[in-house]
């Protein structure tokens, strides 16, 4: 994570999908190789276990499994003895037929996974995670942060005072002395001016809450994008590991590569960490008032300290098992992101700030409901 995600500090901004798409393609291709190995092995087993009756003999041939992680291994095939050979195939022809069947099974399975139908599943599952641009959100948050700081500078220190107050600016005092007699209501102007401080204090609360919430959502989106990349990288490594075990298997090491009987119960990978509390605690409204909030998109890995602890894809070793586990993991990333944003919306930050005891929806409803009280008083000159 980090630089590749860009951020408000400049530098290259690479959309996360540009990192995910090659991973999706690679995973599909590697799963295709794995499925090819499994399909080829099935043909080998069928040949080995074929009930041929009397008059058949076995021989051994060397098979080449193709692919990036291809390998050579041996397999047995049957051929009829001369006196039982009704087809007229020679042992050599039987061997070639067997090898072609194995090769065809491998490529059929490979094509099924790599014909372009696998990646869209991964893309669609994670669309709501990779599609938003946290850099654009971080820039917007920085602008809102500027508003918070400006409002904060206005409260109590900008001469928003009545004409008889020591804080009143000279020009305002002079204006009162020289106000034209033709004016309808100079008092309305002084009342407005004197009220600006109070209004800025109200707006400061709202702006701080808005900015903090914006930062929290931005950080969440950014984190879950990073999480998606991480999950994908680990899944890719898992497929590579499985393919390497196939390569080792050719040496009769005893390690069985497929793990095909292993259950895949797809535990939730994000089920053990309270992200909401983390991200709310990181960007509370009080922090927005205390200083400019900068959300460096994609740099918050500590929010998800054990993000891959229980990845479903890592519990499987067959092509379908890893694929299904990976899809489950991606589903969990998507629902996990939504759950965190739910928390941001519904949990009060309780940070001691003026708005800290209200959830975001209630606070917003209050502000909307009190529009009249929040409006500046009218001036009639």
């Amino acid at each position, binding site marked *: 994570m980090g630089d590749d995600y860009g951020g408000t500090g400049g530098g290259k901004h690479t959309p996360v999908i540009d990192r995910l798409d090659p991973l999706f393609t690679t995973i599909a291709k590697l799963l295709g190789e794995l499925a090819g190995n499994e399909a080829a092995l099935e043909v080998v087993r069928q040949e080995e276990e074929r009930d041929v009756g009397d008059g058949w003999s076995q021989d051994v041939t060397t098979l080449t499994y193709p692919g990036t992680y291809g390998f050579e291994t041996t397999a047995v095939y049957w051929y009829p003895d001369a006196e039982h050979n009704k087809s007229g195939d020679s042992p050599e022809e039987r061997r070639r037929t067997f090898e072609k069947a194995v090769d065809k099974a491998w490529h059929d399975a490979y094509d099924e996974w790599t014909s372009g139908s696998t990646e869209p599943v991964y893309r669609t599952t994670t669309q709501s995670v990779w599609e938003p641009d946290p850099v*654009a959100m971080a820039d917007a948050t920085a602008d809102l942060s500027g508003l918070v700081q400006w409002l904060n500078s206005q409260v109590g220190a900008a001469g928003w005072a009545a004409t008889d107050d020591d804080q009143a*600016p000279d020009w305002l005092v002079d*204006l009162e002395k*020289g106000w*034209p007699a033709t004016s309808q209501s100079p008092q309305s102007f002084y009342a407005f001016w004197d009220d600006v401080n109070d209004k800025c204090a109200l707006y400061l609360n709202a702006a701080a809450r808005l900015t903090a*919430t914006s930062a929290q959502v931005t950080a969440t989106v950014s984190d879950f994008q990073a999480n998606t990349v991480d999950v994908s990288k680990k899944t890719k490594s898992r497929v590579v590991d499985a393919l390497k075990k196939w390569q080792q298997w050719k040496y009769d090491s005893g390690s069985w590569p497929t793990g095909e009987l292993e259950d895949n119960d797809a535990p939730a990978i994000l089920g053990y960490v309270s992200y909401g509390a983390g991200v709310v605690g990181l960007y509370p409204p009080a922090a927005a008032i205390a200083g400019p909030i900068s959300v460096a998109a994609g740099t918050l890995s500590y929010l998800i300290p054990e993000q891959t602890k229980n990845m479903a894809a890592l519990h499987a070793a067959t092509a379908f098992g890893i694929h299904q586990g990976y899809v489950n993991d991606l589903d969990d990333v998507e629902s996990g992101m939504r759950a965190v*944003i739910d928390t*941001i919306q519904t949990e009060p930050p309780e940070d001691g700030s003026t708005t800290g005891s209200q959830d975001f929806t209630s606070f917003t409803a209050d502000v909307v409901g009190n529009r009249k009280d929040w409006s500046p008083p009218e001036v009639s*000159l």
Partner: protein
Amino acid sequence: MSEIDMKMSAIYTAAHDVLPEKAQDFWFYAEEVTGAIEPLTREVALAGNHPIGADLADLSVELFVHLRAMERTFKDSATGLDDIADDFVAVDGEAKAWFEKHQEYAGEPDLPSDATAPEA
């Protein structure tokens, strides 16, 4: 400084300098809210169209409305004071004499346009 000097100077300073500057400040930050909320809600909509986007939009609109109301009040006050002072200049000889020496206050105060409302 004579009384008329002080009076005219106070009114035109407020109308042409102080209040336009305040209007400009509030205009700028109202524009900032509009500029921020549009990308923010757009991206949140892409993030599964989470309902928090509606809250963010609602709160932003409220802030914008109030900041723009501030801006408008400062602008209206500046224009009102300028009109009152101009009327005074038209009927008072001393005021007219002062104004002729202070042509920097001729014309309308330089005020920002209305801040752009967010579409959110």
